[in-house]
Structures are given as structure tokens and as C-alpha cells.
């Protein structure tokens, strides 16, 4: 009990939330969000199939402030889940498990996803 070198269980008052935990949660959240987003993708394609009038209606709905925010959210979810998914695939083949590597790839994925989202909307 007097061995101060042995690790202590998380000391909540001084515990620093690791970035890797944020990404782990975000991967799930963005995945579930995009499962809901499938309904929007479906509405978009169905309205395109239904004709110009219906398509205009859906596009104008998606062009509202809430619609745009939702689409920006979905696009970030897409690019984040894509980039972090590749990070997971790299882990699956056995690379990148060192703590510094996992932290570095976490920040890289976050910046890449943000950058891709920004680039997508600037180019659209």
C-alpha cells in the first residue's frame, strides 16, 4: 500500500480527458447520425425520382437555416467517420497502438475531417 510507484485508479479531480476517448465516442455518434441521415439521402433521391416540383420542395426545405446546419453536420459526420474509419482499419492490421501514435492520429483525423468538410462546402 505504501508503494507510490504503482498506478492509482483514475483520480477524478486531476483526471485529464484523453482525446482518444472523444474520438471513440464521436465515431459512434457520427455513425448513428448518418444512419438517420440515410432517411434524408432517401428523401433526396425519392424526390428527384418523383419530379422537378417535389425536388424543389425538398431542396428548399434543405436550404433553410436548420436544413443547412443539418447537412453541414451530416457532411462532417461523413468525413469524420471516413477518416476515423481508416484509423480503425490501420489498428485492425496491427499498427498505431502506441499512446503517442494514437494521440497524433486522433488530432490528425479531427483536423482532416474539419478540413474536408470546409473544402466540400467551399467547392460545392
Amino acid at each position: 500500500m505504501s508503494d507510490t510507484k504503482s498506478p492509482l485508479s483514475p483520480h477524478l479531480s486531476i483526471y485529464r480527458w484523453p482525446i482518444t476517448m472523444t474520438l471513440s465516442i464521436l465515431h459512434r455518434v457520427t455513425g448513428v447520425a448518418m444512419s438517420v441521415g440515410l432517411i434524408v439521402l432517401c428523401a433526396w433521391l425519392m424526390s428527384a425520382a418523383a419530379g422537378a416540383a417535389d425536388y424543389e420542395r425538398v431542396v428548399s426545405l434543405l436550404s433553410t437555416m436548420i436544413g443547412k446546419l443539418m447537412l453541414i453536420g451530416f457532411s462532417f459526420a461523413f468525413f469524420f467517420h471516413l477518416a476515423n474509419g481508416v484509423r480503425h482499419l490501420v489498428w485492425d492490421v496491427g499498427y498505431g497502438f502506441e499512446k503517442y501514435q494514437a494521440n497524433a492520429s486522433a488530432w490528425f483525423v479531427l483536423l482532416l475531417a474539419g478540413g474536408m468538410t470546409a473544402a466540400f462546402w467551399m467547392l460545392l
Partner: protein
Amino acid sequence: MVRAVIGGRYDGSVLDVAVNAGTRHFVAQRVTAIILIFLGLWFAISIIGIDVFAHGVVVTFVADPLNVFLLTLLTMTLAYHSYLGVQVVIEDYVHANGFKVASLIASRLAHVLIAIALIYSIFKIGLDA
């Protein structure tokens, strides 16, 4: 790759029907993920390349035979990957047995319906144009 993850239980038959359901889920999730890397990026770039606000432009894009094929592959892979993911989330967070089974069935039904609606829309545009 698979050997490292399932350790000692690896029986050498990754895509064989004899492997357990957990391994098949794992493999299917990864295979669909790899397909979606390419098709997802293709879709994002395609959307940038066309005027998505113009109905005629979108219909012309979807109706292209190659795009009918790629969009069908994309949306079906999306639906499958989504189904696999939602299944894991339900299994992780829904513990009451009856509600868990009901949620899994509801998710499967919803994903099948979405897949049908997506494929119907793509083919309707492809055949109309």
C-alpha cells in the same frame, strides 16, 4: 489481420459459412467499410462536380448507366454497413431482452425499407430518363 483479432479461435476460414456470427459481423463491417471509402469519396466528389440544386442536372447524373450501378452499390453498402453498426449500438445499450430483440427487428425492417426506397428511386430515374 483477422488472425490477430480473434486470436486462438481462428480456424482459417474467414469467409466460410462455418465461422461464427461474430467473426462474420466483423469481416462484413470491414469489407463494407473499405468499399465505402472509395464509393463515399466518389459520391462526395461527384456532388461537388454537379449543380445539385438543379433537378435536371441531378436526374441526368443519376440516370447515367455507370452511375446507376455505382449509386446502387453505394446505397446498398451504406444500408448494410449502417445496419451492422446500429446492431452493435443496440446490443451495447439496450439490455431488456424483449426490447432488445424488438429494437433489432425494427432496425432490420427500417434498413430494408430504406434500401428498397433507395434502389427504387435510382432505378426509376435510370429507366425514366
